[in-house]
């Protein structure tokens, strides 16, 4: 019985580790990001929580998949100024709408909350000062 429990624990740990983002840490990669193009703004997406690590829904921006919500992961996209809607779907769909200006950087945190059968991932707009602290330890994740 102990062996079975131990094996189960190992499987859980393996699943947990492989489910997290494993690229370059934001704080190390920060200086290497290419400059944003003219007339574009940049949107960073990040997830700090490792709770519900198995729940990694697609992240859609105006209906287009731009990445997935990996625990401890981040990614970014550059887009023209305008109105945007972020969408994440698990057993429910959660959306965030926001505007993006030229040369503006916006941060979207992908939060996790309790659901009925599975956790919900919901996008939230975060101010720059808070986001820069939170995203520092995240690693480049799965974009598109």
């Amino acid at each position: 019985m102990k062996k079975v429990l131990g094996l189960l624990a190992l499987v859980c740990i393996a699943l947990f580790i492989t489910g997290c983002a494993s690229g370059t840490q934001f704080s190390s990669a920060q200086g290497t990001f290419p400059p944003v193009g003219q007339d574009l703004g940049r949107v960073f997406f990040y997830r700090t929580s490792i709770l519900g690590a198995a729940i990694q829904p697609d992240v859609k921006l105006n209906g287009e998949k731009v990445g997935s919500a990996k625990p401890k992961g981040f990614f970014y996209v550059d887009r023209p100024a305008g109105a945007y809607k972020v969408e994440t779907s698990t057993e429910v769909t959660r959306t965030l709408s926001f505007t993006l200006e030229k040369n503006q950087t916006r941060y979207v945190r992908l939060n996790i909350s309790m659901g009925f059968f599975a956790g919900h991932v919901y996008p939230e707009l975060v101010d720059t000062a808070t986001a820069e602290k939170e995203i520092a330890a995240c690693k480049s994740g799965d974009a598109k």
Partner: protein
Amino acid sequence: MKLASTLAIIGTSLVVWAAGAGCAFDISHVTQLPVNFAPETGGQETAFILLQEVTVKLGTGFPTHLKAASRWRMVGRTEFGEVYTSNDQVLSVEASNIYEAQLVVADRNITGFYLPVEKTFVRASQPIRISIQPANPAPAQPSIPIPAQPSTPTPILST
């Protein structure tokens, strides 16, 4: 008798599931009203500093907080009041979904929020009198200036 109790358990479970699913799937909505927004074209732009923290309730269970000492710059007008935005905080209205918002003020009372993407108005549960100090309007700024480079394709960082 056994069948009846089994059916009762199944029925109760379904009711509990339905109730739970109702809560989990659709917690609350913001009621959005149509609105006419006229952008501020300059010349009469005003700004103020909020002297105290303010909590605005919308009846969604997710109040919106405004920071003390935050600076607000007028960006337009609606029939519900003047519309202000701030570089000092992210302003959003939250229910089941989240919407970026701008503050609507009429006669020093917060009347609600303008949603710039949806182009609608969300009314506060009740108007809130605010203490403000007039300020010179600061120019609109992006949160972080990024050096511009012409004709860069949209980059996406991948693993």
